[in-house]
Structure formats: C-alpha cells, structure tokens
C-alpha cells in the first residue's frame, strides 16, 4: 500500500503550493469554478442531487466520463443514495455538516480510498486521474473517491523481447498494473515505490521502484534529482524520460535499459538496480545500465548455465560480426589481400570481375538497401510486410547479382551481418551498431585494418568514458571486477551467483544467507 501512502504525501505538498484557489463553501460557486476550469468539455459530468438520508444538504457528484470504472462508481452512487436513514437517525437528526461528512466517509462509502481535496488544482488532478468528486453544500472540502479505471490492454506476451523459456508476461500501459506485476514477484516490504508526476500538461505518473537497503543510494539520489529536474509539457513514453535522465546525450550507446518484461525488471531490482515506471507505456526503465546488460536476456537465468554461457558468447560474437563484418570484408579485400588463402582470393576476384563499383560503394549500397527493407518491414502492416521481404530478397539476393551490380560474396557478408544484428537482444543497442557499422566501413575503406583498429580504439575509449548513474558503463571489464565476471560473459550455475554486481549494489552485495549459501 505504500504507493498510495506516497500519493497522499504528494497531494499534501501540492496543497501547500497553491493556496490561492481554495474551494468555497458554496456548492454553486465550486461547480461554476470547475466548469470554468474545464471549459465546455462534454465528458465532464456534473450531477446535482442530495443525500438520501440527509436531504438538507445539496450534493454534487462530478467525474469525467470514460476515466472512471463504471462498476465501482455505480456501487458508490448506490451506497450514497440508498436509504441509510435509520442508521443515521440513531445518532440524532440534527447533526453538523462535519458529522455528516464523517458518517458519509466512514460508514457509507464502500471504496478503498477517499481523499479530501481543498483547492482547484487538486480537483483538476483528481478528476483527470479518474476519480469521482463529491461536493457538499456548505462544506469547503470536496471528496475524491477512488474510482479510477479505464479500459486498458490486457496483460499480453512481450512483443519485443521474446523467450522460449520464461514467463510470458509483459507490462501494459497501465502503471498500476505494472507495479502490481512486480509486487507479485517480489513480496517484500523493502520494495519501495515512489511516485511523482512529470509533465506540465500531461501530468504523467512516474514511479521509481527499488529495494531498500539493496539499491545504490547514490544512484537513487541521482535518479530522484534528475527526475525532478525534468521540466517539459509532456511525457508520452519512457523514451522521453530516458532522454532527459541519461548521462551522455551524444553517444550511440544507450545508458538506460528498457524492457517490457516483468521478470527482467524484478531481476534488475534484486541486483540493486532502480526501475522507473512511466504511465502509458509498457516499457519500464532500469538504471544503472551496463554495456554487457544489453547482451543478456532473462532466459539466460532460466536455461542451464553452460548453455546460457555459450549463448552469451554467441551473442558477443554476433556483436563483433554485426559491427565489423562488412568493414573487415572491405578492409581485407582491398588492403590486406595477403591474408586470404590463395584459392579464396581467386574465387573472390572472379566474383568481382565486371562489378562496376569499388567494394565500399558496393557494401554501402547493400547495407542501405537492407536498412530500407528493415525499416519498411517494421512500419508495414503485417500482411504487406511479407510482400516487402519477398521483393527485397529477390531484388537483393538474385537480381542484383544477375545484373552484375554486386558480387555474391558481398551479399553473403551483408546478410550474415544483418542476421547477426538480429541476435542482439536489445533493440536500442542493435540500432547503435547499425550506425557504427557504417563508420567502421568508411574507416576500413580508407585505412584498411589500421582504420578498423583505430576505430576500435576510439570506440573503446568512448565506451569506457561513459557512465550510467555513476557506474562506469563497461563494468566489470573496465574497471575490471573479478567477482562480477561470473555473470557477464559466462554465467555460473545459480549457486555460484551469490553476490550482486558490486558496483551496482555497492553495499549489501550478498544475495543469500552465507551459512546456507553453499550448495550442500
């Protein structure tokens, strides 16, 4: 329930901020103020009625249609307008307004939460978050009844990060559902949620979630500060937040991890990371994010350790291919022909006979064509996508070779590179590789392997200069942390993973009670 508790403190803060537009004791004035604030919007419903049991008092029920859960609301209305006269009468009929309110809240409203509102801004927020407001005549405070609930998507399978083995539960656009999904997985009181709202117009709910005592306090402070600093009219997706809070803007590499898988977030929290939920998107952010994290998938922990270690190595190998594949091909065939076996060189040379472009142009053409195809495939409706891939395969695979525009070996290189880049589990990391690949191709075309080496140098320097919320991006390779190697390229069996990553959790790094920790 901590979430709601926190929500209360939040509203209190706001009270202090805007004392100017306090509500009036007159119901009619209040109603007209609200009408003024919202303009002539037609989905604002204002019902004037009075309590069944206390007809003296006029009552207004205000809500925004569509944002409220009709079932809950019905029961609320029911209970309010029902006959409670007898119970109420027991207490005497000429009660003060306060007592009426007290009775109303404590005895009649059968909902989870009722909040007092006293100023116009708050009225606005409460209405817009889907709550139903009551105003009693002669009472300067309104009451927000929790009736939030609008139609959202059901919990679905993740679209972007699929696994063979593992939970098939993805987050939805609803922040509360998402938070619940984590709560369900980590049933511990140390799981803390802090909510705030970001966006001057959108007032998007944003929640920070962490495990108290495990998460790195410094990073946590950093996250809070950076979230506070955001001042923008609207946040529509966690990507917006990501751009505001990341450490380095000018880097192709993502320093914030995002996922729509609940188990990944739960795992990250257990390692001491901090999750940032944003309402309206299934993608939840996880910080601090390390380079190697983008090459790991949750499935690694569900499969056998040896297999997942091998798969991780395969992924890193694919990273190398996806980054350097075409560059190496260009570099070797135009600068270092002595490196190829003679027979291979002859067959490559035979393929290149009659190709009008230099290798760089050939590779660029193919790569660009492929990128176009890929982009088209993503944007197209699924049914058309099929057609695109067929045309693409024909154009690239067959016709271009037949026409003598590209050589078959180049097609092989480009397609292997493309497939390798699909192996990388994280989409935003794969994009960065797509950019860098072109840079490396240029370098290889002008300086051969020397250019690639120099490029690698600059790349590694850049990577090691990055930090994600105070943690060096290349941890545990640079700075090298021997203890953390067990869960980077390799994954030791579960009994070997007794420590949290030391630079992320920083203190409280032991996962298990040490006495019981040894396997048998």
């Amino acid at each position, binding site marked *: 329930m901590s979430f709601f508790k926190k929500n209360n403190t939040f509203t209190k803060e706001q009270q202090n901020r805007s004392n100017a537009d306090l509500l009036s004791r007159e119901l009619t004035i209040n109603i007209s103020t609200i009408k003024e604030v919202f303009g002539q919007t037609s989905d604002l419903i204002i019902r004037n009625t009075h309590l069944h049991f206390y007809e003296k008092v006029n009552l207004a029920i205000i809500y925004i249609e569509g944002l409220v859960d009709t079932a809950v609301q019905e029961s609320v209305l029911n209970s309010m307008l029902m006959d409670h006269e007898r119970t109420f009468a027991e207490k005497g009929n000429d009660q003060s307004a306060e007592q009426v309110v007290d009775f109303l809240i404590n005895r009649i409203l059968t909902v989870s939460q009722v909040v007092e509102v006293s100023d116009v801004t708050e009225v606005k927020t409460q209405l817009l978050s889907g709550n139903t407001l009551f105003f009693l005549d002669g009472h300067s405070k309104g009451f927000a009844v929790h009736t939030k609930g609008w139609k959202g998507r059901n919990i679905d399978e993740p679209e972007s990060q699929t696994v063979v083995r593992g939970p098939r539960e993805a987050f939805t656009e609803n922040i509360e559902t998402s938070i619940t999904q984590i709560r369900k997985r980590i049933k511990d009181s140390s799981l803390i949620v802090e909510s705030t709202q970001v966006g001057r117009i959108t007032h998007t709910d944003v929640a920070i979630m962490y495990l108290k005592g495990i998460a790195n306090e410094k990073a946590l402070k950093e996250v809070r500060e950076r979230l506070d600093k955001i001042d923008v009219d609207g946040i529509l997706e966690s990507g917006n937040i990501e751009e505001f809070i990341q450490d380095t803007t000018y880097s192709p590499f993502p320093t914030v991890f995002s996922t729509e898988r609940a188990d990944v977030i739960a795992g990250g929290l257990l390692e001491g990371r901090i999750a940032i939920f944003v309402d309206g998107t299934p993608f939840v952010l996880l910080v601090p994010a390390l380079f190697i994290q983008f090459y790991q998938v949750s499935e690694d922990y569900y499969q056998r350790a040896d297999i997942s270690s091998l798969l991780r190595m395969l992924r890193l190998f694919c990273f190398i291919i996806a980054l350097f594949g075409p560059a190496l091909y260009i570099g070797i065939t135009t600068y270092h022909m002595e490196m190829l076996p003679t027979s291979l060189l002859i067959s490559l040379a035979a393929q290149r006979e009659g190709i009008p472009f230099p290798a760089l142009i050939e590779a660029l053409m193919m790569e660009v064509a492929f990128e176009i195809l890929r982009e088209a495939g993503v944007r197209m409706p699924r049914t058309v996508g099929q057609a695109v891939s067929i045309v693409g395969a024909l154009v690239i695979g067959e016709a271009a070779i037949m026409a003598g525009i590209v050589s078959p070996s180049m097609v092989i290189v480009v397609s292997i590179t493309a497939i390798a880049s699909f192996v990388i589990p994280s989409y935003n990391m794969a994009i960065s590789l797509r950019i860098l690949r072109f840079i490396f191709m240029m370098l290889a075309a002008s300086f051969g392997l*020397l250019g690639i080496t*120099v490029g690698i*140098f600059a790349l590694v320097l850049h990577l090691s200069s990055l930090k994600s919320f105070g943690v060096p991006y290349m941890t545990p390779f640079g*700075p090298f942390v021997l203890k953390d190697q067990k869960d980077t390229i390799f994954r030791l069996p579960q009994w070997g993973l007794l420590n949290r990553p030391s630079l992320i959790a920083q203190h409280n790094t032991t996962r298990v009670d040490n006495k019981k920790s040894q396997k048998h």
Partner: protein
Amino acid sequence: MLDNGQISSRQLSILFLIFTMGDSVLILPTIVAGEAKQDAWISGILSLFFGAAIVFLYHRVGRMYPEHTLIENILTLLGKWIGSIVALLVIFYGMISIGALLREIGDFMTSQIMVETPITAIMILMIVVVGYAVRMGLESIARSVEIFFPWLVLLFTFLLALLVPQIDPEHVKPVFEGGIKPILRGAIPFTSYPFIETFMILMYLPFVKNKHEIQRSLFIGAGLGGLVLVVFTLLSILVLGSEMTSNQTYSGYKLATKITAGDIIERVEALLAGIWFITIFFKMILYFYASCLGTTQLFKFKDYKFLVVPMSIITLSLSLIITDNSLYLGTVFVEQWPYYDFTFGIVLLLILLIIGTRKLKKQKT
C-alpha cells in the same frame, strides 16, 4: 588536482606494463640482436635486474611527496628558475617522444603494410585518437587499458603458442660467444627503452587510490612487461635466428609472418599488429597526458584539456621535423636516445631524490 580522476593500483600495474612494452615490443629485438647477437636474451635478463633498480628509484622519488607529480616535484625541489627550465625540458622530452613514437608507427605502417599511403595521413589519424583519449581523462584511459589488456594477453598467447612449433633450439648456440661486452652493449637499449623511458609514470602516481600498493604495482607492471620483452626477444632468436632478427627492421612483425598452423591460420600478421598498436598507442597516450598535465602545472592553468589540440599539432610537426627517413631515426634510437633517456630517467631523478630527502630531513628536525 586538475583531473579529479583516480586509478586503482591494478590499473596502475596494467598501465605501467603496457608503458613498459610500448614500442619496444616492435623494435627492441632488432636493436639488441644487432649488438648481442644470439645472446640478446641474456641482455634482456640482465636488464630485468637493472630495471628493478630503476623502478625502485621511481618508487622512492614518488614516495617523497605522494601528492606531487614529477613536474610539481621539480618545481618545488629545484627552485623556481631552474625548476621551470628543467620542467620545460621534461615536457619537451615527452613531446619529442610522442613525435618519435608517431613517426615510428608511421614508418612501420608505410614500410610494411600500406606503402602508398602518405605518412602524414596515418600520423594524423593516430594523433587524433590519442588526443581524443587524453581529452577523455585519466579514468577513461585507465578503464580502456583494462579492457584492452585481456585482448593483449590473448594475442600474445596466440602468437606464442603458434610459434612454439617453429622454434629451433640450435639458434641460441653458441652461448656467450663474445663474452660479456656485447651482452652489456645490448643491455643498454634493453634497459633504457622499457625501464628508463617510463619515468613519466611519476606523473601518474598521485592519482593512485591506494598509495601503499604503488610499489607492488610498479614492480608487477615492470616485471611482467620486461618478462614479455625477454620472451619476445628469445622467441625472435629461436625462430628467426640472430642474423635474421638483426637484419629485419621490425623483427616482431617478421616473427608474426612465421605463424602457420596447418594451412588454416596463416598470414595473420596484420591482425597481430594489434599487439604493437595497443602498446604504442598507450605509450603515446601516457606521454601525451603527462605532457599536458605537466604544462598545466607548470603554467598553473585551470584545466588541461584545452592543451590537447595545440599539443597534438606541435607533436605532429615534431614528428615530421625530427627525421627525413626512417633510417636516421633508427640510428639515433640505437646510439643517442638511450643516453637522452638516461639524463632524465636516472640523473634527474637521483638529483631530485637527494635534494628531496635532505629537505624532508630538515623539516623533521
């Protein structure tokens, strides 16, 4: 501190190891085999002992004022005027060393791998990356050296493993043919390139987190680096023979061409050139950073980063000025450069040590 970065003692070891290997790993076997013939490896082992003494000297100098870099030491111990001149000379030493290294790698590239490419282009490419590294700051440099280190070990092991079948033990015979003198002659460059040239590491000691582990780190770095060089020299002689080693300008590169493993792994020397790139790059970076930092401390600037661009232009022009052809640089490297190193790496440091200990004693009493 201008750069509030800190490096761990582990990172210091690796930095010093790579600093020690530097360009030596490419050209040293040739130079030493030219003097000591097949006994070059004995020169190497001998130099390991000299090296230990020199590293001990570094440690003692660094320990006097643990928060001071070399330039600050010079300025405080030698007085304002002499100190400034000596500091300028040290900075110039750093810059001309970068120039020479730049030229060396340019010559290597243009003579072995890319003949038609103008040397200026290669050198500009190099200096741009080196400057970029210096701009990134000490912590990034230290972290990236940690990332490269396993690859270096991997490449080196690969080279070693594939060359073992090519070894001909007859090549080291006869041992001690010319007596001790040629061996000592070979030990001069073998001591000065890996161990004396690296006195610039004193610019980095104040940034180390655990001061009491400095000595250990320095010895580990120098010891491993020196050992690698000895192994490399021995390997060159065992595989190529002393005649061929001294005949080749870049014996290390020639060594890599010898790799064959069942027709599958062949002709990989261009890949193995990575070893030399990594070490030479870091040597340049370490010199460059030290020079920038030194200049900043000498002139009391507020930041060192703005110096990167002007310094790189100057070193670039220096590398073009210092020699007309690669042969001249080669002779200077053998005949004069070791003594140039000696002046700074030993004479200067000894003077500093003597003055410093006296001063500290006076302060105590």
